[in-house]
């Protein structure tokens, strides 16, 4: 399987270039669209909070920083959940006609998410400078945390591909699922501590990673390093399982899609 991924890389790169140049050739603002949604969402919550429509006071960093970092990190996760299916669907017309490495679209999707992540990182560095957050060398670990989010999202996304290839319901449903998850994950509010609300934290593997990365970025200190490491390890194992699942199921799925 590793060998096939290696063979697929050349094609994946071309598909990645194709997607990017396609997306931005018909657009005037281009990459601005990557930055605008998280900033807009964050600003909205800052606004709601400052007018006391929401009442969030207990974050251990300035609330705007908390929200901005949270939404950006969430966005990275959400993009990586949707990327595999999107990339797969854009390649279906080719895959049902030409026998090519089936892993290539997934790799291309991940590459897009990584590009997206790098742009977001620039945004976040600007943000941290703006709020004059004191620098700590641990902050340099933050990209690792973001990668972990990409692993989580991609894993989930890969599991969605075979079913999503067959039924459109998955595409519709995953968007709604992510919107719900956004509110069920402590992105714009601090993690709840009293039962039963704390279930949101304990049952959701994304929380330790998102929370940990945010803390790394803003303060350089992680409150739950064990949870972070366990979740990351779990994520990597799940990713391998997901790739096997994908490999076995995709030929059958493609047949049903008109190959």
């Amino acid at each position, binding site marked *: 399987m590793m060998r096939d991924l290696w063979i697929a890389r050349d*094609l994946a790169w*071309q598909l990645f270039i194709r997607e990017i140049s396609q997306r931005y050739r018909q657009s005037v603002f281009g990459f601005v669209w990557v930055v605008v949604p998280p900033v807009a969402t964050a600003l909205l919550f800052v606004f709601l909070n400052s007018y006391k429509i929401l009442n969030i006071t207990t974050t251990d960093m300035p609330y705007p920083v908390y929200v901005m970092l949270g939404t950006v990190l969430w966005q990275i996760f959400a993009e990586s959940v949707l990327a595999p299916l999107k990339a797969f669907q854009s390649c279906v017309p080719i895959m049902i006609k*030409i*026998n090519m490495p089936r892993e290539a679209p997934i790799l291309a999707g991940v590459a897009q998410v990584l590009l997206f992540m790098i742009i977001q990182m620039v945004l976040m560095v600007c943000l941290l400078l703006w709020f004059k957050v004191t620098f700590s060398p641990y902050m340099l670990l933050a990209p690792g945390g973001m990668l972990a989010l990409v692993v989580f999202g991609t894993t989930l996304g890969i599991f969605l591909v*075979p079913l999503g290839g*067959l039924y459109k319901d998955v595409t519709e449903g995953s968007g709604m699922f992510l919107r719900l998850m956004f509110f069920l994950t402590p992105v714009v509010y601090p993690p709840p501590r009293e039962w039963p609300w704390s279930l949101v934290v304990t049952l959701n593997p994304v929380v330790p990673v998102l929370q940990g990365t945010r803390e790394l970025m803003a303060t350089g200190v992680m409150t739950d390093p064990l949870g972070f490491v366990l979740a990351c390890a779990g994520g990597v194992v799940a990713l391998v399982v997901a790739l096997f699942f994908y490999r076995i*199921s995709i030929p059958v799925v493609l047949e049903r899609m008109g*190959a």
Partner: protein
Amino acid sequence: MADEILIQVEGVAKKFCRSLKRSLWYGILDVGRELAGQSRVDQLRKDEFWAIRDLTFQVRRGEILGIIGPNGSGKTTLLRLINGLLLPDMGQVTIRGRVGALIQLGAGFSPILSGRENIDINAAVLGISRQELAQCLDDIVAFADLGEFLDAPVQSYSSGMRARLGFSVAIHMRPDILLVDEVLSVGDMVFRNKALERMYQLAHSGVAVVFVSHNLGQVDRLCSHVLYLRKGCFEAYGPTAEVITRYVSDHLPGGTGMMHHPGTEASFLVQSVTLHDVSGAALESVQSGQSLLIRMTIDVKKYLKSPMFCFMLEPVGRSIILAYVHQERENVSRPSLEPGEHVVETLIPKLPFLPGRYELRLSVAGAIESQLLGKVGKLITFNVIPRPGQYIITNDAGLVELDAQWRFS
């Protein structure tokens, strides 16, 4: 090496489902079976049917196999099975070497990117490494011959131009096996001939080619063997001329009888046509290079003033008229015919046709401005057989022999 089998198809069967909803559900079940490590279901489930059944054949290096058959007979499905896009429900497909498939040209062209950018992507999709592409990029561009359109977005291309681009990329990937599915139909004549020529060259250099087409002329020109599919099964498999003849006789309208074109009956009806040799003895089949007498009995319905008779001879399955035999040329008188039965005899002193199956047609024109009086198709179909000791080139034999004088000095 020359006899190396590149494609081996053994007892292959594939089923499809008529209902989309059910097909998707079977997909889920099949994924489950694959994950559990179980084999495929070899029974038909509800709404399923066999698209391909019990096919066994092989293609060797340098061979061009044509696949013909009516729509929905499983031609494209077979190509997809060979290409590995579909996995057989039964049997086995074994492939040796790199497969270049032109199942649909330009699959994966992005409309808003330029032709040049699409070459990069298409090459990667087909598995050409970047070093290889750098080497043959000039050839690809030259063969596609798109001029300044190369840097225009593909959405501004005509379908023929897209086909050129796709074909050009595919043939330059140095495949061992080339699968071509009815893709040349959109190209113009010049390109089509260029493409056929190139496929022939590729086969000559040791590529195994499988060619699906409805254009029997192209199949005839290109292929050494032909596989005729019908409802997913073999109908015939063998040398090109034989199989094409079989295919055509299966699909000629109206079975074996004569066909009077509408309006013809008002002027005349052909009652019988028989073939004879010069002495008048009836012939079942004609020897190549011998004389042939066509004896036709017609029932004239109204007075025909100086009609001109013209026979057309057509090799079965090749949709060309190979020869005309008409009165004008012989400068004979054109007697008028009273209503009633008449016998018309035409003698061809030396029939130059090579062995094969031929069909006779008739058209009759009137005296005034050669106005068409009637047409009859399929008067008779007959075989031309080789005369003893005749030299025959078995493949690509041509259709006629010409008398010639040779001189050496």
